[in-house]
């Protein structure tokens, strides 16, 4: 027989002002199974807690109801309190008579009756509470970082430096990501390579980091602490152990192709390293373009390689390993501005993207850093930069702001003048969004010291006539149409999610938003986590971010991983779903609706190992106890511990039959 103790809190005047706490305690004392009821000014204070502990002992209480504030605030406090007095912490039930009652009512009599009802519900449930205990789940203390851009690199270094093993998977032949393509970085004008390449080298030399470039995540199963990941190491056609990175192979390769790293402005070979500072500095053969693979000709690279490292017979390798945590840092791609038929991108060679401009001014770029027009290699004088290409534009691109363009437009306007003192930058903008440390000052510098002309308005048309580009737009501040004779036009094309972000999300069991950016667990308070435990986000795979934000989030993600790894193992929350296997018919509707991929099919077998039937099975490591499966189950075969049907129905009965 349960012996319930009820403890009504005044919360100073927070509750007592609107609720007659004495009357609540008195009414509670007459409720079924209640052995003791009292009230106190601050139940959460030390004397209040001692009151609870003493009562447990004196009155041999087995269930406790605290009628006070929201369980979100003090449930852990009172769970600890009663477990110190020898009760199972899940024998606690809270009646929220503050947020749900005193704070929202004025009529004291009615509020008091409501408080009594809420308490009665809690008592009815408490009688049916079961002792629950947390399960220990093993924890593999190695991390997987997906994506080798600056965010992935930072996360990998932070985790590795704390002493844990990290595998850094990168899809392209080298780590470095977008940042490796940039020339200088706003607002300090640090050379991107100068600050990034040392970090890339650190990754390569750190004994705790294993870089798997030219590799992709193929399959993910398991759960926090125990993710089983299959990684596809694509055939590089080079023996990485033998290659010395001498470069003879690609110097002699006869196949010339547009370089992805140079945004199509430069060339690479069929065997190539994407850029000089690549890590690993080992080439890769593009099998779709290499003559050896296309028509079994050439073979020059193999003949010339002094280390005998070229291996045409290499095959993709699938590696499956267990990881405890995953950091997703897969970055972004740039939106294709050819969508705008009026801006001439893809039609006129001197209409380029911001990223192409970066390559044109980069010392290791296709022109060795000499800023010239792609069409005729002359030095451009008038350059027009156009903001919000595909950003803040429902019609053609995305409604969101890509966040970095205002800053890199200012940077480009400034660098243009540094490259050529006679040049003139024009910037068409919607608003100047320069909210970061030193950002606004940087834009002012571009305008005031470097004479960039900022025009607030959009461009209606770019066209070419007699070798000149004409940019027509409107200056909305002057209220006049403008036409600029330009030598080059640079489009600040939007950042958008990776084309296969949704596929990766499906593999990982995480969600994406309407633009395919990965969704965080909470936009303000849990920006680094996703709803699936053990998976964290870093960088622009979540939404457009600049380098400082990406790096900060990467360190945030790393610290989340380290927080997880700091414990010997994982304790599971006991309030999770459980399946009544006798009743379950195996329709697996619960599996369909589960947002955490926590439910799987399980085949029950008899003693001879013959299958009897299929039932649902809950993975307690993945289950968050949301209850969606419970609502979906047609035969009530799946129940949420701590919120079972009999408990909830008892609460409803207590309310329905109150006077």
């Amino acid at each position, binding site marked *: 027989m349960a012996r319930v103790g009820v403890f009504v809190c005044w919360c100073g005047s927070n509750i007592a002002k609107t609720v007659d706490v004495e009357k609540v305690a008195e009414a509670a004392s007459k409720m079924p199974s209640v052995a003791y009821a009292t009230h106190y000014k601050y139940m959460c204070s030390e004397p209040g807690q001692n009151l609870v502990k003493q009562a447990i002992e004196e009155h041999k209480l087995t269930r406790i109801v605290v009628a006070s504030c929201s369980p979100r605030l003090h449930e852990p406090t009172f769970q600890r309190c009663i477990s110190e007095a020898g009760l199972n912490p899940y024998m606690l039930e809270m009646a929220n008579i503050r947020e749900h009652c005193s704070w929202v009512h004025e009529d004291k009599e009615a509020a008091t009756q409501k408080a009594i009802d809420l308490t009665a519900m809690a008592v009815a449930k408490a009688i049916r509470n079961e002792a629950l205990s947390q399960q220990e789940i093993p924890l593999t203390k190695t991390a997987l970082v997906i994506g080798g851009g600056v965010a992935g690199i930072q996360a990998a270094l932070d985790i590795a430096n704390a002493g844990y093993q990290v595998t850094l998977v990168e899809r392209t032949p080298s780590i470095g990501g977008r940042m490796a393509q940039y020339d200088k970085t706003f607002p300090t004008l640090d050379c991107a390579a100068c600050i990034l390449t040392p970090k890339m080298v650190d990754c390569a030399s750190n004994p705790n980091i294993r870089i798997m470039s030219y590799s992709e995540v193929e399959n993910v199963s398991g759960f926090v602490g125990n993710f089983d990941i299959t990684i596809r190491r694509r055939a590089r056609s080079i023996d990485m152990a033998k290659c010395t990175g001498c470069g003879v192979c690609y110097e002699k390769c006869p196949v010339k192709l547009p370089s992805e790293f140079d945004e199509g402005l430069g060339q690479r070979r069929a065997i190539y390293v994407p850029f000089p500072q690549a890590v690993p500095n080992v080439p890769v053969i593009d099998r779709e373009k290499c003559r050896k693979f296309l028509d079994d000709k050439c073979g020059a690279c193999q003949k010339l390689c002094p280390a005998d490292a070229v291996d045409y017979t290499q095959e993709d390798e699938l590696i499956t390993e267990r990881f405890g945590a995953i950091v997703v840092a897969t970055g972004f791609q740039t939106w294709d501005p050819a969508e705008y*038929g009026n801006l001439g991108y893809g039609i006129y060679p001197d209409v380029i993207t911001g990223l192409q401009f970066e390559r044109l001014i980069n010392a290791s770029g296709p022109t060795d850093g000499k800023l010239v027009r792609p069409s005729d290699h002359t030095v451009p004088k008038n350059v027009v930069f156009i903001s919000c290409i595909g950003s803040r534009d429902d019609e053609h691109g995305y409604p969101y702001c890509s966040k970095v363009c205002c800053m890199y437009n200012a940077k480009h306007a400034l660098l243009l003048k540094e490259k050529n003192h006679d040049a003139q930058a024009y910037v068409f903008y919607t608003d100047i969004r320069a909210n970061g440390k030193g950002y606004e000052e940087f834009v002012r510098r571009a305008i005031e010291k470097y004479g960039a002309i900022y025009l607030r308005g959009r461009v209606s*048309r770019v*066209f070419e*006539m007699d070798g000149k580009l004409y940019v027509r737009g409107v200056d909305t501040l002057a209220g006049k149409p403008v036409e600029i004779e330009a030598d080059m036009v640079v489009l600040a094309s939007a950042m958008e999610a990776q084309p296969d972000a949704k596929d990766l999300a499906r593999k990982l069991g995480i969600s994406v938003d309407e633009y395919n950016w990965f969704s965080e667990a909470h936009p303000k308070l849990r920006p680094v986590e996703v709803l699936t435990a053990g998976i964290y986000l870093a960088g622009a795979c979540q939404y457009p971010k600049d380098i400082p934000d990406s790096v900060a989030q990467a360190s945030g993600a790393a610290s989340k991983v380290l927080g997880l790894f700091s414990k010997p193992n994982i304790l599971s929350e006991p309030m999770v779903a459980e399946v009544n296997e006798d009743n379950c018919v195996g329709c697996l509707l619960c599996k369909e609706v589960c947002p955490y991929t926590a439910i799987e099919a399980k085949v029950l077998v008899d003693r001879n190992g013959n299958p009897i039937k299929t039932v649902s099975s809950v993975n307690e490591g993945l289950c968050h106890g949301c209850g969606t499966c419970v609502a979906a189950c047609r035969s009530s075969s799946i129940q949420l511990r701590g919120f079972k049907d009999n408990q909830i129905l008892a609460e409803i009965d207590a309310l329905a039959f109150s006077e």
Partner: protein
Amino acid sequence: MKYAYFPGCSLHSTASEYDLSTKAVCRELGIELEEIPDWNCCGATSGHSLNKEVGIALPLRNLAKAEEMGLDVVTPCAACFNRLKSADDIVKRDPAMLALMAEKYGVNYKGTVNTLSLLSVVYGLGVEAIQSHVKRELAGLKPACYYGCLLLRPPDVADFDDAENPISLDELMGSLGAEAVKWPYKTECCGASLSLSKSEIVVKLTHDILSMAKRSGANCIVTACPLCQGNLDMRQSQVEAKYGEEFGLPIFYFTQLMGAAFGLPDSSLGFNKLMVNPGAVLAAVGSEGK
């Protein structure tokens, strides 16, 4: 292939050569046109600017009549197309408006009609199908293809070609053996109906278009809109006088040039209705036989 034909007011008056050549070309291509009986004004400009409901009711009545015929609508005029298609789009998105149209204006439309511009229907036949009708290639003809501002806008309603950088008319001209010039003013505004109320604006805008066409190497302009054609053709001498520039650019409807390439008689194409004499340009082009 049969359509309900909506000529609109222009094609029955100032642009009768567009009507004439449309019918001739469609006959040649096997496109049957049945004029909507008792059609009314599409509601362009004044109608929809002054009263939104009337601006929808007018075109919708025409669509309702086409619905009775059981046919999709084709119209050569860009303004008619815009009004018909917009009204259709509005009532398809807004059932309350559709109900109001029946209740208040007695227009009973179910929403089963698809509205098409003549250009999209002809272009939809495909370049090869059109080429098979060509008897006289328009070699040497260098048209600037001028789509105007209305034909392809708003893009999600018009639902045809790229609104900013269209190519259908250029490809169509190519299939006739003409060399469409590359030029940037394909979709600039000609001033349209401001021709009467603010003619000085139209003179400036048409000047810009004519001069860009000339600069781009065109020897004529081809249009798919009676307002564009009217402004560029009728205002041309005025523009020449005001700016002191000689253009001499004939302004054709695309159907007239198709008819010429198909070897249809001039009398069925209405060249004599054009203000800028196309005689010299037409005489210089073409190679017999194909």
